[in-house]
């Protein structure tokens, strides 16, 4: 699989790095602003797809299918494990909200500037789901690229 010319590499680098940061920002503030795990994961997967097309040789060495597959399975197991931890009251219970532990601050009713330390188990679930979605979409792009055959 050949890469692209130097102009395409430089300009796509100016797009990939801000897109990765923007995707991480949307995943991290999922409990305060519109967004969350699925949307941020799709943005990161788009940035990785542009990386795969523009830098063909370097990307095939970094993004291997075994590594991405292991990350996706670990993220899904973490998501399910978090939902088992609140089993004292029910499945999927938000055991970290309104308590004193991490992410456990209480929120007064009404509009307010957002506080990051709130919302219990929701930011952790956002992170796991974002990792899983981005790895899944990148695996799909990798598999379809390799199966199309190498055309010179």
């Amino acid at each position: 699989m050949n890469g692209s010319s130097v102009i395409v590499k430089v300009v796509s680098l100016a797009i990939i790095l801000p897109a990765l940061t923007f995707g991480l920002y949307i995943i991290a503030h999922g409990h305060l602003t519109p967004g969350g795990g699925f949307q941020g994961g799709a943005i990161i997967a788009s940035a990785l797809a542009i990386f795969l097309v523009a830098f063909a040789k370097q990307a095939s060495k970094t993004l291997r299918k075994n590594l991405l597959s292991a990350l996706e399975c670990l993220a899904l197991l973490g998501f399910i494990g978090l939902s088992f931890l609140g089993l004292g009251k029910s499945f999927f219970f938000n055991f970290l909200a309104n308590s004193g532990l991490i992410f456990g601050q209480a929120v007064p009713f009404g509009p307010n500037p957002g506080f990051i330390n709130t919302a219990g188990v929701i930011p952790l679930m956002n992170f796991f789901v974002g990792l899983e979605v981005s790895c899944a979409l990148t695996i799909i792009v990798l598999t379809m690229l390799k199966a199309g055959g190498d055309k010179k």
Partner: protein
Amino acid sequence: MKLAKIAFFLIFTYFLLACALLLRPFGKPAVSDMDEYFILNAQREAASNNVVASIVFDYRGLDTLGEATVLFAAVSSIVLLFRGAPK
């Protein structure tokens, strides 16, 4: 055969357009007790400012679990399809 296809498509399009013009006026949703409960109690119980995120991950978390499973199953079957003997 072709006449039957064209007739079915025209009747179906007429049915869709008639339904679109006869629905509730856009902007006046039906009274929904579930949404009122979510808006009033999401900050007290789930402690989050984003009501939609608290619905997706806290009140209706099982739907999110099913969706993650569907995505995982689709990716697994795509990798399985392209695994045939590369000669």
